């Protein structure tokens, strides 16, 4: 399929995003957060929980006074490692057990700390490289089917039921499995620990749950002869830590949006910006594809009106990702099929939007979300809306295809719902496989006009944002009609300015290996 679009307007939008993100990046470079520091600890091998089930990385970070923490948790741990000869994991355990106090090693020279840490940092980096290589090897051996890649969610709340459901979905043809996170985990300022069997609307994201699901999918992949990808959620108060854990457990994708937490979870914007940067740097190096959350604009407000905002958010997410050293092939920008099914020619609008996104971001593995908001208890009708969504996806060459569920309005998917949903996608995408290649959009028609107006609207919005600044724009409710103040929201107290001599050895190592645009 082809659509004529105004390329100069597209270029202008990219330039605008650059100038919108630049000042935020300056802020990011000068700050860190408790979750960034905890991620550093996890990469150094700290794990487990102390008293009251508090994760060791949290105990360790909280054990330091802000002025000390401001130079980076790595520096402190490095000193302790240099003094005690313990490795970082042992050091963490000792602190959590209350046997040793991290603060007491302050006197040690920074250089000694750096040196003591170096081998552990290298070990951490090696672990990331190994996992990434592993994925590459499997993808080579177990080829995926051509996109759209069928993506389904499991969300029973119980990781073991989720595993059953995931394996069944793979047999039905799923290529990507997402374990939906328990309601509001994004608001927890720690990552829960261990295998979990209780959750609301989803299953907790824990390292052990990641491991259990990855193992099951690796097995299923071998049987299916196709590598099946695993994804979860980073966005929230623990973006960097989840990114670290996902890298270690070889997840292949992560929901990771530069503004979702701010707008849809009232998480402090500074916290989010700093966190998303380090988490994405990690994702980039681990070869994890990020998925952004533009769909959220559409589920909470009118989809026709929000289209320009969605495109603008995609440009901003792209820019933030580039700044974190992420190549286009890892930037899964989000869109969704959320226009009112009762609207005459709504299908034309959906096609216009999907094709526009496809052409504006030619190398991005676009993530296309299914109809949700207008789904009702009429499962027969819902199945049809999903079918036209499936058709739109294959016509416009979307990459990551979230299969819609006929029971979307009713419950988190049953095993049988998932099978019907995958049948739907496979039937439609097979019978209309090359339909998109067969048609040309009539110049001056409804579809072309719609695409043009969305792009124009996006450019205007980006101009307004650029003129006042991103943080101010969010404060001015430019996005999703929600108003957030720079210092309000959850997790603000977890943000701090980097003191002179601040050390984040992984950030340094990663930046050295990734190509980050100046």
């Amino acid at each position: 399929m082809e659509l004529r679009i105004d390329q100069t307007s597209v270029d202008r939008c990219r330039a605008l995003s650059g100038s919108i993100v630049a000042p935020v990046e300056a802020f990011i470079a000068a700050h860190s957060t408790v979750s960034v520091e905890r991620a550093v600890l996890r990469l150094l091998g700290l794990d487990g929980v102390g008293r009251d089930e508090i994760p060791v990385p949290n105990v360790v970070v909280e054990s330091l006074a802000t002025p000390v923490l401001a130079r980076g948790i790595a520096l402190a741990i490095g000193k302790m490692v240099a003094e005690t000869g313990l490795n970082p994991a042992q050091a963490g355990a000792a602190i959590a057990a209350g046997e040793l106090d991290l603060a007491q090693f302050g006197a040690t020279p920074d250089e000694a700390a750096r040196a003591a840490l170096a081998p552990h940092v290298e070990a951490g980096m090696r672990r990331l490289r190994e996992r990434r290589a592993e994925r590459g090897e499997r993808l080579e051996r177990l080829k995926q089917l051509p996109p759209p890649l069928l993506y389904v969610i499991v969300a029973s709340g119980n990781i073991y039921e989720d595993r059953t459901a995931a394996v069944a979905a793979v047999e039905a043809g799923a290529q990507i499995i997402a374990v939906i996170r328990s309601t509001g985990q994004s608001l927890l300022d720690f990552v829960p620990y261990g295998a979990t069997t209780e959750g609301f609307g989803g299953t907790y994201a824990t390292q052990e749950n990641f491991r259990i699901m990855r193992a099951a999918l690796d097995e299923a992949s071998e049987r299916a002869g196709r590598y099946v990808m695993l994804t979860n959620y980073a966005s929230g108060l623990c973006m960097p830590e989840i990114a670290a854990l996902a890298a270690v457990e070889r997840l292949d994708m992560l929901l990771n949006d530069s503004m979702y937490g701010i707008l849809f979870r009232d998480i402090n914007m500074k916290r989010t910006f700093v966190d998303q940067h380090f988490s994405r740097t990690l994702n980039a190096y681990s070869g994890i594809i990020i998925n952004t959350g533009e769909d959220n604009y559409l589920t909470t407000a009118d989809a026709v009106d929000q289209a320009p905002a969605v495109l603008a958010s995609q440009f901003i997410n792209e820019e933030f990702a580039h700044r974190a050293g992420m190549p286009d092939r890892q930037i899964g920008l989000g869109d969704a099929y959320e226009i009112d099914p009762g609207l005459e020619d709504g299908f034309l609008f959906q096609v216009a939007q999907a094709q526009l996104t496809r052409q504006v971001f030619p190398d991005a593995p676009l993530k296309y979300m299914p109809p949700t908001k207008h789904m009702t208890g009429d499962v027969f009708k819902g199945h049809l809306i999903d079918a036209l969504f499936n058709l739109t996806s294959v016509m416009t060459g979307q990459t990551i295809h979230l299969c819609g569920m006929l029971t979307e309005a009713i419950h988190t998917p049953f095993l049988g719902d998932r099978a019907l949903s995958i049948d739907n996608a496979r039937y439609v995408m097979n019978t209309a496989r090359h339909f998109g290649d067969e048609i040309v959009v009539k110049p001056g028609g409804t579809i072309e006009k719609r695409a043009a107006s969305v792009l124009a609207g996006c450019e205007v919005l980006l101009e307004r944002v650029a003129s006042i600044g991103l943080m101010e724009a969010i404060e001015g409710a430019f996005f999703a009609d929600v108003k957030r103040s720079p210092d309000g929201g959850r997790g603000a107290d977890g943000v701090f300015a980097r003191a002179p001599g601040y050390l984040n050895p992984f950030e340094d190592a990663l930046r050295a290996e990734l190509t980050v645009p100046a």
Partner: protein
Amino acid sequence: MTQGVKPYGDTMNDGKMQLSFTLPIEWNEAADEAARQLAVNMGLVDVQVVEGRKIATGFSFFVLYASTPHSVDVDNVKASPARAHAMSMEEVDAFVAENVGRKIRVAGACIGTDAHTVGIDAILNMKGYKGDYGLERYHWFEAFNLGSQVAAEDLVRFTKEKDVDAILASQIVTQKGSDVKNFTELVELLEAEGLRDRVVLVCGGPRVTGLLAAELGYDAGFGRGTLPSEVAAFIAVTLAERLRRSGSQLFA
């Protein structure tokens, strides 16, 4: 009609219905028969297993058509009282002016960890729902929208502070009974604080029915496709009624 009503396929009282379900067994010849027997065990007759297939190792999916010998006595089915009094926004405002004589204070929230505000917003926001204005637009209502993930404690505290007349609690997530749990917590807290009888207590959400609300001890419950005016009317009428009984303008 007084006699029981049965499902209608293409003939009165044929009792026809469609069913679908998954069985955790491997599909094979016998699986279809197992599905049929399950339906028979459920008391269905003329059972036809029209589709049966493997959907995964150890799981089979079935579609059945069958007749139920059961019927329902529709005459004794009562509609929930909640939507009894249909009034337009103007009518409600006039009614309140006349029978309450002051603005009704309403506090709405999506309680527990539930963050689905679209529903409660539809009831409260100016904009409203399906062309029916929200409570904020009413002249004789003062609406407070506490938003999402509001703890029962906070909602109760707010109720006290602001002398709220009516509480609107929303629950969209129902998995594992979280909605019932949260609704119950709220009503119990109100009772503990001795506030229960001072407020018109209303719950809502796609799975809420009048019946559920009654069981939980709420004054009313609103489900799928509720319109703001229906809620406004219920609150106004109920409150006026209480005022009449107590003869005074409660804590005005």
